[in-house]
C-alpha cells in the first residue's frame, strides 16, 4: 500500500528549484510528444526539427536571438507586474502601442535628426506609448475595481484594431503601392543589425540592460520591496504605509513601457515600417507570460527563459513549414509547458513523499 504524504517545504534550495524546473520542462515536452503522436506526427522527428531549427544551426540560432529580444523585454516587465500580483495580460498591445508611438515619432520628427538623437528618441517614444497603455488598466483596477486580466485583454483587441485602422487609413504609406503599411522610417531611425543576421543589437543591449536593472530594482530597492509586499501580503503593505495607487501605477508604467521598447525594436530593427499587428508581434506579449513564469519572476533569469522560448517560437516555425502544421502549434507548446511549470510549483511548495507500507502497518495506523 502506498501512502502519499504532503508536508510544507520550509526551505527550497536553488538546486532543487532548477531540478524541478528542468523536470517540469521535460515532462511538458513528453506531454507535447504524446499530443504530436496523437496527430500523426513523429514526436522525435518534430523535437529534433525544433532543436535544429532553433539552437542547432547558425541560421536558427541567429533567429532565436532575434526573437529573444522582445521576449526578454516583455518577460522582465511582466515579471515585475506579476510579482505584485498584477496580472498584466496586455503586454501584446503595450508592445504594439510602443511600435505605434515610435513610428509616429520616427516618421514625423526623425528625418531631420541624426541617428544618435533619433534612436534614443524613438525608444523614448516607444516606452511612453507602452507605459501610457499600461497605466490604463492600473487606473481601472485601483479606481474602479476592474479586473486587470479582462481590461488588459480588451485593450489588446482594441489596440490591434486601432493599429489596423491607422495603417489602412490615415497612416497608409504613399510609397507602399496601396499596401496597408506606413512609409519606411528614415534611415537615422533604423536600427543596425549584426552582419548576416536580423539581430538588432541596440535593442538586444537595451533588453539585457533592462533585465539586469529590473532585477536590481526588485531585490535591492525600497520600491522592489514594496512590489513584493503588495504581491505577497497586501494587508501588511497597508500597515507599512505603502501607497498602493502610486506603486501600482509605477509598476504598470514600467511593465508597459519595456513592452513598448520591444515594439520599437520590432518596427525599427526588423520591419522598418508599421504593418499588421500579427506581423509586428507574433504573440510575444502572451509568450512573455510563460517566459516570466519559467524565470520564477526573476528579471535576470528572464534572459535565459526568453532565449528558451524564442527557440520554441523559431523551432515551431521550422516544423510548421516542414511538417505542414498550423500556426497554433506554438500555442500547444506554450500551453502545455505552462501547465507543467505550474504543476512543478506544487513540488517546490510542498514536500511529497511516498511511504510504502505493508497492509498490516497501514491497518495499524
Amino acid at each position: 500500500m502506498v501512502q502519499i504524504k504532503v508536508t510544507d517545504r520550509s526551505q527550497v534550495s536553488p538546486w532543487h528549484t532548477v531540478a524541478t524546473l528542468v523536470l517540469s520542462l521535460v515532462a511538458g515536452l513528453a506531454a507535447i510528444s504524446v499530443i504530436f503522436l496523437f496527430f500523426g506526427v513523429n514526436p522525435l522527428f518534430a523535437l529534433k526539427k525544433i532543436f535544429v531549427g532553433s539552437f542547432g544551426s547558425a541560421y536558427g540560432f541567429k533567429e532565436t536571438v532575434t526573437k529573444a529580444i522582445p521576449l526578454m523585454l516583455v518577460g522582465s516587465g511582466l515579471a515585475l507586474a506579476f510579482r505584485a500580483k498584477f496580472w498584466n495580460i496586455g503586454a501584446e498591445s503595450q508592445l504594439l502601442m510602443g511600435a505605434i508611438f515610435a513610428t509616429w515619432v520616427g516618421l514625423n520628427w526623425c528625418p531631420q535628426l541624426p541617428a544618435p538623437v533619433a534612436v534614443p528618441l524613438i525608444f523614448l517614444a516607444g516606452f511612453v506609448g507602452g507605459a501610457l497603455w499600461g497605466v490604463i488598466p492600473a487606473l481601472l483596477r485601483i479606481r474602479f475595481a476592474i479586473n486587470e486580466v479582462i481590461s488588459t485583454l480588451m485593450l489588446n483587441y482594441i489596440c490591434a484594431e486601432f493599429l489596423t485602422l491607422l495603417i489602412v487609413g490615415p497612416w497608409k504609406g504613399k510609397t507602399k503601392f496601396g499596401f496597408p503599411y506606413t512609409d519606411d522610417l528614415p534611415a537615422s531611425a533604423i536600427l543596425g543589425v549584426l552582419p548576416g543576421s536580423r539581430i538588432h543589437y541596440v535593442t538586444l543591449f537595451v533588453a539585457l540592460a533592462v533585465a539586469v536593472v529590473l532585477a536590481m530594482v526588485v531585490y535591492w530597492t525600497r520600491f522592489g520591496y514594496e512590489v513584493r509586499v503588495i504581491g505577497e501580503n497586501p494587508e501588511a503593505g497597508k500597515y507599512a504605509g505603502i501607497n498602493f495607487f502610486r506603486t501600482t501605477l509605477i509598476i504598470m508604467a514600467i511593465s508597459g513601457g519595456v513592452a513598448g521598447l520591444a515594439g520599437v525594436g520590432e518596427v525599427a530593427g526588423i520591419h522598418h515600417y508599421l504593418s499588421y499587428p500579427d506581423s509586428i508581434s507574433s504573440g510575444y506579449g502572451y509568450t512573455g507570460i510563460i517566459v516570466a513564469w519559467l524565470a520564477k519572476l526573476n528579471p535576470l533569469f528572464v534572459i535565459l527563459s526568453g532565449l528558451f522560448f524564442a527557440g520554441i517560437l523559431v523551432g515551431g516555425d521550422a516544423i510548421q513549414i516542414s511538417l505542414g502544421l498550423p500556426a497554433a502549434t506554438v500555442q500547444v507548446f506554450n500551453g502545455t509547458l505552462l501547465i507543467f511549470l505550474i504543476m512543478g510549483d506544487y513540488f517546490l511548495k510542498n514536500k511529497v513523499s511516498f511511504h510504502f507500507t505493508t497492509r498490516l502497518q497501514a491497518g495499524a495506523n
Partner: protein
Amino acid sequence: MEEIFISVAQRTLVAGTPLLLGTIGEVICERAGILNLGVEGVMAVGAVTAFIVTFTTGNPWLGLAAALIAGILISMTHAFSAITLQANQVVSGLALTMLGLGISGLMGKPYVGKPLAIKLDDLSIPLLADIPYVGPIFFQQSPYFYLAVILALLAWFVLQYTRVGIMIRSTGENPRATETQGINVTRIRYFCVLVGGAFSAMAGAHLSTSYSKSWIEGMTAGRGWIVIALTIFALWNPVRAMLGAFLFGGIFVLQYLLQPLGIPPNFLAMMPYIATLLVLLLGGLRDARKLNAPAMLGEPYRRGER
C-alpha cells in the same frame, strides 16, 4: 422597417447565445470559488470538435455531445492544477486557453474553409411562433437559443433553491465551514469546473455548427474573455447573465448594421471590447462590496489547514 427590426432582434439573440452559455458555465464555476480563465480555449475546442463530428457524421447533436466530452476532458487540466495542486488560478486558466486554442488549431487544420452541409434548422414553437413580432423574434430560433435560456433558468433555480446549489455557493464563500458540514469541497469544485467546461464547449459548438457553420482558427474571437467580464456584470447570477449576453449580442449585430454607414470596420470591431470595459466601469462605480463576488473566489483551498 418592421422586417429589419425583427431580423436585428433575432440576430441579437443568436449572437448572444454563445455568450450566455459561456457565462452560465463561468457563473457556476466561480460560485464554487474557482476562477476559470480558460473559457476562450475550451470554447475553441468545443467549436472544432462539434464541427468535425458534425461534418463526418452529419448529425449536429452528435457534434454537441462530442464537444461536451472534449470540453470536460480539457477542463480537467485546470481542475487538477487549480484544485488538487492549489496552483495560481490566473496562470492555470491562461495555460488552458493557450492549450485549447493550440489544440483546436491542430485538430481543425484539415477542415478549414469546408462548409457544413448539414445545417441545424431553426426550431419553430407551434402557436407561439405566430404571435406578431414576438413570435418570429423569440420562437423561431436556433435550438441553442432555447437551450441557453432554459439552462440559464435552470442554473439559477439550482443555485438559488436546491441543496446542491447551496453546497456550491457555500464552497465559494467559506470552504472550511462547508467541509465541517461533511461536504467534500474538492468534489464540488471539480464538478463545477467540469460543468463550466461543458458550457463553454457548448458555446463553441453553437458557433461552429449553428452560428457560422464553418471552422476557422480563432473564430471564438475573444468571446471567452467577454464571458469572464459578463460573469462580473451578471453579479454571478445566471438570470442577469441573460441581460448581459443579449446586450452584447446586440453590439455584435450593431457592427454589421453600421458598416454601410461608412464607419471604418476596424473601429466597429473595437465596439464589443470597448463596451466590455464600459460595462465593467459602470459596475466599478458601485461599492465593490455590493458586487457580491464569492468571497473565496480564486483562493486555493487546502484541507486541514487553519
